[in-house]
């Protein structure tokens, strides 16, 4: 256990840091929902790609950096110190394009990888459906043969970034008579194709990060197929496996913010900063947050050694989302009546806890609910049996849906 770099690592780190100091944008807009924010994100991605700092471990001929895994870890650490633009490329580079690289044909690889690395093309992932939720293999969106090609009809939901994406990775049902997991096929889609209708989902927090995507007779060539016919479920596992590693910290207030609040608030017994109940909670939160941080160190250690990270990397979201909800609720209890005020200009610490309270429920759900994450840990890490399934080995059209 050593927090010090090897000479080679230190040299790379110094070089990366110097480059970042020279090139990282100052006072950049972050919100990729605005044109300025998106332009700044694309410019930064291109700059990194040109210097070999985008997709550091991917081959150079595809726009990557051609470096070993530890470089990728170091660069991410260093970049985190700078106030860089938003990142709309995460889903494409973290999930969709790796799927194309693994399961796609050579033409697709040649066509898509480099523009994605350069930040020229953005991808979205079209898996979840209204009736499905966590059950991705329950996809009902149909792809029906039209000569050699396909026609798509149906609806996806919870699609992040669909409204600004150039391409999408679509999981569609090609054989409803086959058992659930055996009648799906993966395609890539031009999001500007006629018949695609993207509608934002209004979230309880007020934001609209996700979309519904409707398909109305959308034509797709058979050459847009990613992987074999009816092999879409296996292909989707590649995508989803990459998802687990792509999910980072959740942002939001930390135990430090509660400590700051406690400086300014009193309880019935005295200053909140001296309240033993609050102090115990801060200790509990600290231990969880630090535990997650050191767990990420372990993951990074594995990645930088070129190993697959252990299963411990799957615990992050399930811990941090509830942590945030609990912390926000406790802060509001401290603020007492005042806690109901959500306006950033009126509330303590600019309403950071109120905002966290409204976003925490989404964190507990997006990318796999707490319940699904625990199931994954139980099954994939601890090797416990799958839940009893009533939807296998029967034709998909006969699987009970309650409707």
């Amino acid at each position: 256990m050593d927090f010090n770099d090897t000479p080679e690592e230190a040299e790379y780190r110094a070089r990366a840091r110097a480059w970042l100091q020279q090139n990282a944008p100052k006072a950049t807009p972050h919100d990729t929902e605005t044109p300025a924010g998106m332009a700044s994100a694309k410019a930064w991605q291109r700059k990194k790609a040109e210097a070999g700092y985008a997709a550091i471990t991917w081959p150079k001929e595809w726009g990557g950096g051609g470096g070993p895994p530890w470089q990728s870890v170091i660069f991410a650490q260093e970049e985190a110190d700078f106030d860089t633009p938003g990142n709309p490329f995460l889903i494409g580079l973290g999930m969709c394009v790796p799927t194309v690289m693994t399961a796609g044909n050579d033409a697709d690889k040649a066509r898509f990888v480099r523009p994605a690395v350069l930040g020229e093309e953005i991808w979205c992932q079209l898996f979840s459906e209204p009736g499905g939720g966590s059950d991705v293999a329950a996809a009902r969106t149909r792809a029906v043969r039209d000569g050699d090609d396909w026609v798509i009809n149906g609806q996806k939901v919870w699609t992040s970034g669909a409204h600004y994406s150039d391409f999408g990775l679509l999981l569609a049902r090609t054989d409803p008579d086959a058992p659930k997991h055996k009648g799906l096929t993966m395609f890539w889609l031009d999001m500007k194709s006629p018949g695609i209708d993207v509608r934002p989902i209004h979230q309880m927090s007020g934001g609209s990060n996700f979309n519904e995507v409707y398909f109305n007779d959308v034509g797709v060539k058979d050459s847009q197929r990613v992987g074999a016919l009816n092999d879409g479920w296996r292909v989707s596992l590649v995508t989803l496996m990459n998802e687990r590693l792509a999910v980072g910290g959740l942002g939001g207030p930390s135990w430090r913010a509660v400590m700051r609040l406690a400086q300014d608030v009193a309880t019935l017994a005295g200053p909140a900063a001296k309240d033993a109940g609050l102090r115990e909670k801060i200790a509990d939160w600290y231990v969880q947050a630090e535990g997650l941080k050191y767990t990420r160190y372990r993951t990074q250690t594995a990645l930088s050694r070129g190993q697959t990270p252990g299963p411990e990397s799957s615990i992050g979201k399930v811990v941090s989302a509830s942590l945030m909800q609990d912390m926000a609720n406790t802060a509001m209890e401290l603020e007492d009546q005042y806690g109901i005020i959500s306006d950033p200009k009126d509330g303590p610490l600019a309403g950071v806890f109120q905002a966290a309270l409204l976003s925490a429920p989404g964190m507990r759900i997006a990318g796999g609910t707490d319940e699904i994450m625990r199931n994954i840990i139980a099954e994939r890490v601890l090797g416990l049996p799958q839940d009893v399934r009533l939807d296998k080995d029967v034709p998909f059209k006969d699987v009970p849906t309650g409707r």
Partner: protein
Amino acid sequence: MGEREGPVMDFDFSDDQKFLKSEARKFLEARCPTSVARGVLDDPAKSYDADLWKAIAAQGWLGTTIPEQFGGLGLGGVELCAIAEELGRALAPVPFSSTVYFLVEGLLVAGSHEQKQRWLPKIAAGGIIGCFASSERPGPLSEAQAGARVEGGRISGTKAPVTDGDVGDLAVVLAREAGQISLFLVDLTGEGVRRETLQTLDPTRGAARLTFDGAPAERLGGAGEGLALAQAVLDRAAILLAFEQVGGADRALQMARDYALQRFAFGRPIGSYQAIKHKLADIYIKNELARSNAYYGAWALATEAAELPVAAAAARVSATEAFWFAAKESLQTHGGMGYTWDVDCHLFYRRAQQLGLVAGGAKAWKERLVSQLERRNAA
């Protein structure tokens, strides 16, 4: 062996009270589906539903505990609890708690005969919206919240947040006069009052910052008794709010159950998975504990029992925990749908916070509870 459990043969609503409750539920099911709360949520200009408010006044509910001599129904606290539970279940977006639990109870606890005579009949008739202005800064009720000053019968200072302060006619205000903290009645429709609407976690219930600049203020209750009287009002409000919370928590559980039965994953209803089953069982357990504690509070409220402060604190702590847990886990049970604006889960999530904070947060009530237990032990 063990503690004497007391003579308990009648620890439930009576048949008459059950009838009143079921009539209230029918009325609210008809007049207050969640679309009514949503109407207030989605319209920034609205801070309550005026039609519902009128209809509730017409039912006579505003005067439930107001004596008949002052134009009320002269019923007991248990009857008001029964109505409160149904209002909570319906997420009613009206200034009922501010007007009835705070203003009416404040007048009944501390008002002079003249003050009662002047205000209670108007309130019972639906002509007055009340509010309770104790808070000035983050933190629980204490001397630090009494920065507002009264001199020569006029008040100056700022109170925030004041629930229903944006539409209230008459406020009970905690302030300082001649170095003593007292309660005051302030007519918000008169001179020297500025209101700014505040953006809150639960836009289905209005709130404002009230700035007084020489508004006429009349003392409510004895000079220097402000904190004790405010606490007495809070104790009574806490019990009534606990019933609203229990009502809301029950409804949140019901929604989660219904959704879990109709939503399928992996070929069967999500309600057949133990993760969901046990989550809903946990909600049920907390709700029943909260209901039982609230019943004890209702008894204490109706009989003016010496145990009222303990019963109020226990009811509030239990109900706040139950509604918060029910609201957040009901939302979680709904998955992604629960996080959308268009599904009702977030209305309950927001209301759970509103009810959990409006009479002060659970942390302060826990401290009050234990202080009371110590006092009882010492006695």
